[in-house]
């Protein structure tokens, strides 16, 4: 499991770096997406169980289901979180299109300078 956590931390740091350091608005939004997905990875990793099976009951696995199925709660949380992430990204892209239409630039530094 260590490699999953280390990977999650690396992805999260990449996302944060993109969000803070990049000057292009679209790149900032992409950084936001990367950061969120790393947290989804973390949530799925929390529900991990050795030799786990998906939390879906069938006629075959009914007798050993509760002993082996992975944690279903983080998966539900990830579903909720994905939709929230999607809405935030949609709104961000709407603001970016608006900014491009008005200011004719996607560079945040030039945007600051334009309005003085």
């Amino acid at each position, binding site marked *: 499991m260590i490699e999953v956590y280390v990977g999650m931390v690396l992805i999260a740091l990449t996302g944060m770096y993109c969000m803070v350091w990049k000057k292009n608005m679209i790149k900032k939004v992409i950084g936001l997406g990367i950061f969120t997905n790393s947290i989804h990875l973390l949530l799925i990793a929390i529900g991990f169980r050795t030799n786990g099976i*998906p939390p*879906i*009951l*069938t*006629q075959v696995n009914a007798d050993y289901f509760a002993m082996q199925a992975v944690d279903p709660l983080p998966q539900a949380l990830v*579903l909720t979180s*994905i*939709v929230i992430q*999607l809405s935030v990204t*949609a709104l961000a*892209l*709407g603001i970016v*299109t608006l900014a491009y239409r008005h200011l004719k630039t996607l560079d945040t530094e030039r945007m600051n300078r334009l309005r003085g």
Partner: protein
Amino acid sequence: MDVIIRNVTKGLLPFIIVFGVYILLHGHLTPGGSFPGGVIIASGVALLAISFGLRKAERLVKEETAHVVEGIVALFLVLVVLFESFARDMLTPTGMAFGLWSAQHVLLLNVVGGVMVSMALILIVFLLMKE
């Protein structure tokens, strides 16, 4: 877009939408549910909008229609989810286990939520595609 994408879209679009509806209807039995199903339906419409242009896709779903349908469906969703709090005893399963009719309220909510998600996404995609 070029002719290959147009023809492929023409052929694939019904299947994409049927697949989305299948995922919505079987959300309580197989992996999937309201959000994946809604996204699949919306991506079919988005494919149409990309290959044939926004005009053609708007003939299928208008923006205003999507907006109003979204509001009405969301209202219905609120009613059902809040109704669950009072009707715990009525929601015990009655149908055959592992059948399509085994969890009626989850099925209903999956379909309604899927319609809501697909309408919202279609609306957002159309709006962001506008010049």
